[in-house]
């Protein structure tokens, strides 16, 4: 019961944070002078194309870009009547993309789910790699196992993602026959889910997961190793050894549990880092996530599209933090729900 209350409280703070984030996003997007339409109008004027100007002026009115900023914000959110009445994020109207000349919802559509999928796969990869390797590196510290994992880890940290991606694509295709770019074979796009389609997606996920996940895995591994080393030198470990506990059981039952907290808390850091990192990686790898859309939108000041994508990324981040907070509470009895009360 307490847990549910705590979860509800966290959800509430999350929504509040999201509201604040939405204000920030809107302000930042509107910081550069002009907007997509006024830029277009300026260029059309300079070339004397009156017909285009009329259309752009019409769109400016239609999307309330001629109003003061605070009104624009409220209309965008859906808390203020715009030219079409209340129609904003709250009502499920994500706005219009001027660059693509289509509703935002239509453009991001599938990309949202693929973004979630790619990042989930990467998070999973990070944990599956970092956990065993981190523990192993700590247990066998200062041996070749430790040095090798550290070396590979630092390589992963130091290699720029796009370079890693191109190398993996080249060699992956040459020796393993892996596909280059994309998230599924083109013929499956828009098809209903089928076994073949899932297989195609999985094969296409290999390289992106690796590219997005490597640096995160390397960092996480090193942190786990350091935490473990702290614990391993403590007296209770020696006691355990003296009592004749099997090494694996000893490791997993005591020091690992102690070292686990930062590992879980990291989800909150990991998710935003990866989501924002994967924007550029997606552009390089040609993934159909929201990354490429965000980049074009920002470059051309396509504000509704950019704002929506940024909101979505913020939402993912907040969900990540929330998951890590809830997990911590479940895992570690030392953390209490309402520390303030006690």
């Amino acid at each position, binding site marked *: 019961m307490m847990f549910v209350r705590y979860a509800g409280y966290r959800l509430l703070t999350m929504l509040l944070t999201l509201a604040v984030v939405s204000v920030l996003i809107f302000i930042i997007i509107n910081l550069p002078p002009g907007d997509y339409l006024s830029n277009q109008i300026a260029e059309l004027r*300079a070339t004397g194309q*009156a*017909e285009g100007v009329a259309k752009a002026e019409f769109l400016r009115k*239609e999307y309330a870009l001629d109003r003061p900023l605070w009104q624009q914000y409220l209309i965008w959110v859906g808390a203020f009547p715009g030219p079409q009445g209340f129609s904003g994020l709250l009502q499920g109207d994500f706005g219009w993309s001027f660059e693509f000349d289509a509703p935002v919802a239509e453009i991001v559509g*599938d990309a949202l789910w693929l973004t979630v999928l790619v990042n989930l796969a990467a998070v999973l990869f990070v944990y599956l790699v970092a956990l065993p390797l981190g523990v192993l590196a700590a247990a066998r510290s200062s041996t070749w196992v430790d040095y090798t994992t550290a070396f590979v880890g630092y390589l992963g940290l130091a290699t720029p993602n796009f370079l890693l991606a*191109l190398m993996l694509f080249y060699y992956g295709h040459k020796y393993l026959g892996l596909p*280059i770019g994309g998230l599924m074979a083109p013929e499956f796009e*828009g098809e209903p889910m089928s076994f073949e389609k899932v297989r195609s997606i999985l094969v296409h996920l290999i390289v992106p997961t690796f590219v997005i996940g490597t640096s995160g895995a390397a960092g996480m591994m090193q942190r786990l190793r350091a935490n473990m080393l702290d614990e391993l030198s403590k007296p209770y470990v020696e006691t355990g050894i003296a009592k004749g506990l099997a090494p694996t059981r000893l490791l997993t039952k005591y020091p690992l549990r102690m070292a686990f907290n930062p590992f879980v808390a990291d989800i909150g850091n990991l998710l935003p880092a990866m989501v924002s990192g994967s924007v550029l990686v997606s552009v390089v790898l040609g993934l159909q996530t929201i990354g*490429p859309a965000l980049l074009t939108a920002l470059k051309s000041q396509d504000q509704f599209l950019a704002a929506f994508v940024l909101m979505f990324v913020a939402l993912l981040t907040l969900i990540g933090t929330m998951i890590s907070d809830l997990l911590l509470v479940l895992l570690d009895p030392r953390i209490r729900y309402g520390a303030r009360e006690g």
Partner: protein
Amino acid sequence: MFNRLIAIITAAVMALPAFAQPVVLESTYWEAQVANGEMDRAALRIPGTPLIVDLEAKGRMFGTQGGTLRTMVTRSKDVRQMVVYGYARLVGYDHNYALQPDILRDYEVEDQRKFTLHLRPGHRWSDGAPFTSADFEYWWKHVAQNEELSPNGPPEVMRSGGEIATVTFPDAYTVVIEFSLPNPVFLQSLAGASPPFIYRPAHYLKQFHVDFNTADAMAQMIRSKRVRGWAPLHNKLDNMYKFDNHQLPTLQPWMPVNAGGSSRQLFVRNPYFHRVDARGVQLPYIDVVELGIVGSGLVAAKSNAGESDLQARGLDFRDVSILKKGETDGAAYKTLLWANGAASQIAIYPNLNFADPIWRDVIRNPRFRRALSMGIDRRMINRALYFGLGTEGGMTALAQSPFFDASNLSKWAVYDPSTANAMLDEMGLNKRDKAGYRLLSDGRPMEFVIETAGERQEVENALAIITDTWRDIGIKLIMRPLDRDILRNRVFSGVTMASVWFGWDNGIPQAYTPPGYLAPTDQVFFAWPKWGQHHQTRGAAGEPVDMEPAQRLMDLNAAWAITDDEETRGKIWREMLGIHANQQYGIGILSEAPQPVVVSDRLRNVPELGKWAWDPGAHFGIHRVDEFYFADDPHAEVSQ
């Protein structure tokens, strides 16, 4: 066995006396549709007088129908490249850049004023509806002159000297377009890479047009399609160039089908296409074109893996090494090097309308621009970036143009730092700071800021080399990479000191090519954005031309338009090119840089040495992709 069969059939066909029109063979792709009566036989699908392409005259081979051509673009809106590659136009350029009727059976021109277009009787849209003068009439009366669809009236191509043409439709296969003043650019614009479509499939579009529907039906349509009015809907659905409406009938060799995906688009053969080869095989040879939409960084890697059958878009010269590596690793393609058709691969445009008055005076001095040009070591750039395969020299007509003049190419364009230094000293820019850079009259060091679109690595590499050689003439080059749109807007507003772009798109002008792009008529020539605006807006924005040689270019451009004498026009062209070479308005660095073209080993009829040019050229368009075909075994070609 099969080969022998083909040989026998071929022999039989060849044994027949040469008919004016070959017997048209059925295509296997539409066999099922013909068999169950959904579609006419091929012989009935093509126009009564089809365009019979003369493959032999071009040294090409007869092909067979079939196969899927895979190629890639980098943005979803590049689906329109298929209109460019398909290159079915009312009139089109042939491989010698001469205008020939294409969709039209024939045309007549009187005094450059009256154009009579003859359609091919029996020609049909890709959905089987007849293509007649009614489609021109629909466009002219209900689209071009409809105030809601075209608030500004008919497009520029239908005007001459500001006056709108008179268009008449004497019969179903004749359209007469008459201008009150000569319109010498009319046919050339119809043959462009992105042409004005002066016809529309009336039978399809009428259902969306207010003139042909009751108010009730229109209101219902607007509601069900969730649009703001009928005009936006019509405008969205009738774009013949964007190729984004797969229901819109087309005349191109391939028509889009809805593949329901964002990472590829399929195009299948147009069953009613109007070209056939001399053996009665309807073009295009290739059945299906699969246009993949991939990240721009992946085009080279995917080509290397053999995932494209024909690729040039998205490939740069620096990708040649990875492409060649793929070839030696056994991928089934070869990399051809075509020459770029732009007048210059990299050109620097000092802005004559720059906002800073002191700098502007310096930039407007021709000696300054000449000195800059002579301070560039073109040989070194060519060798460092293009393995010496480019043509070094200033911006002028390429060797294939009748107006090519080697002296224009080398004028003020030979590396000579000591002469350049002397010229700058003569200008009074002889004071230098401690680092050896010259000082402006107000004491500022000469920091010459060149802005780029930040898209092409080769530009940045070339500028890095120029930075070194300009240091020797006392000019500090500062490179500033921007975004394409930001660069354009900065140049147009006059705050850019100098910028880099390609040279003129059309590097091979002919006498009939309008020389407007050599004169200050358009802001996109980055040396005179303000003068261009002034002309484009008829004086509403920008500044009037206030330099003698530029005014001369303007006058010559006007003189070209009022004559149709080939010799006079040639003279005008030569004088204009001469002014440009002498004035160095755009400082060209090199031209004809190699454009890598990846061609599958199975793909035939692709020219070994082609031109990669936008207009005229339409990239692959002028090389007629519909005549390319697949052959599995190089020895199994259908014998002549």
